């Protein structure tokens, strides 16, 4: 997964940023073109396809009835998984998820879980015995930077798109009515904004080229009311307190902007 960036690329990107410009002409706080399509996989109970510039991924939601975890007997189960498919980049390898893939799915999971996107308590059918279990699979098809924001947007959209059969309980048995499909109990459209720190600047929605030379990365998950539900700093260089607060500030408008694609 090591990718060698020519020093000259690094220098030119950094130089541009210093000049207030980005290689693709965007403003520092501008997303690339966003495209969101839902219901793209008929066999999934919910699905969404996201394009962020050339970055492309599909999120599929599969539901099944399962036992709840013993420490949360009244709550449905959400499992978030991601695969950085070898098709998506020349340096992605087949095999079990590496640390980048694990981080992507865990941060997505935290944003959705802590942002209370779905009301997991309403997914309980029989306390301690039967709950809905939702598998969210993030399938990365084309990698051109900023998977994190695309993954959260796709995950929220797929959950909004998901329908399950009505479940009723008779004599301790669960009866599913596939004629009456109902949407998941939906709470919040928590979304995530990611910035790359390059030199002294923060740039939103880093492209692959920017990610490869960035100093640090900060992702901010926000609810519609502007409260924070998740954050993750990445990268091998530090970031300052003031940069973090600045990123939080920008994220308010930018998650709002992304949220419009969910309408």
């Amino acid at each position, binding site marked *: 997964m090591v990718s060698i960036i020519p020093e000259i690329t690094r220098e030119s990107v950094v130089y541009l940023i210093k000049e207030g410009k980005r290689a693709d002409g965007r403003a520092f706080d501008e997303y690339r073109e966003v495209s969101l399509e839902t219901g793209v*996989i*008929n*066999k*999934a109970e919910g*699905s969404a396809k996201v394009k962020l510039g*050339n970055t*492309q991924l*599909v999120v*599929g*939601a*599969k539901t*099944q009835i399962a036992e709840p975890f013993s420490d949360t007997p009244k709550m449905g189960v959400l499992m978030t*998984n991601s*695969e950085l*498919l*070898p*098709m*998506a*980049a*020349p340096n992605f390898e*087949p095999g*079990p998820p590496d640390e980048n893939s694990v981080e992507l799915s865990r941060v997505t999971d935290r944003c959705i879980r802590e942002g209370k996107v779905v009301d997991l308590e309403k997914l309980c059918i029989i306390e301690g015995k039967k709950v809905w279990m939702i*598998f969210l*699979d993030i*399938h990365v*098809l*084309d*990698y*051109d930077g900023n998977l994190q924001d695309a993954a959260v947007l796709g995950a929220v959209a797929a959950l909004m798109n998901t329908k399950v059969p009505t479940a009723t309980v008779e004599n301790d048995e669960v009866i599913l009515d596939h004629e009456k499909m109902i949407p998941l109990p939906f709470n919040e459209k928590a979304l995530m904004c990611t910035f790359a720190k390059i030199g002294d600047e923060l740039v939103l929605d880093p492209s692959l080229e920017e990610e490869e030379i960035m100093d640090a990365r900060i992702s901010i998950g926000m609810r519609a009311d502007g409260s924070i539900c998740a954050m993750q700093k990445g990268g091998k260089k530090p970031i300052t307190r003031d940069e973090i607060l600045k990123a939080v500030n920008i994220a308010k408008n930018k998650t709002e902007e992304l949220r419009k694609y969910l309408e």
Partner: protein
Amino acid sequence: MIKITVESDLSTGTETSARADGRAFNELRPLKISAGVLERADGSAYLEMGGNKVLVAVYGPRELHIRHMMQPDKAVLRCRYNMAPFSVDDRKRPGPDRRSVEISKITSEALTPAVFLEKFPRSTIDVFIEVLEAEGGTRCAGITAASVALADAGIPMRDIVVACAAGKSNGQVVMDLSEAEDKEGEADLPIAMMPRTGEITLLQMDGHLTGEEFERAIDLAVEGCMKISEEQKKAIKERYGD
């Protein structure tokens, strides 16, 4: 030599209504192929056929890092057939299972004869097939799309390999089984071929066919291949012009 004029021999004019989805015995499901759909891959293609949605990326020719696989006089063509967890009714656990290992192997063997591997010694050409949604016949769909992605990657080839299945369903030998027909059906016979010479590069069968039925099925699969081959050419032409 394969004769493609089998249609008139087989069609009796009565079988057409017998299929659940109303297709004629020698009718393909609706088919759509596009080339060049991914940014990072050297070549790519997307195919929809009936309910199947298949995406293929090609990388290479590129350096092969696994020394014991390296061939001193030619490239290796490696395939990875993979199903998305959400592509099937019951969620599939990520990672290869025995079925996908076998399909990856025979897909590689199906494509290999068409590629001028000898032009790229010590290297690899990697074909990644992702089944985003599965509805019967994904191995053929994968091979068909992979050939287009190889062409999109500019890999020099003798021919564009194409794949299609025939089978037996409701007592009738038919082209391109749907998922329902495959599950309930009596036999399935997927093949891949090089249309120019008619040579067969993949063939599998399971079920119950008499010798005569088998011969009809193979000819019907070949016929399907020839039809799909036209769609492949269109997709490539659309991407690159004439």
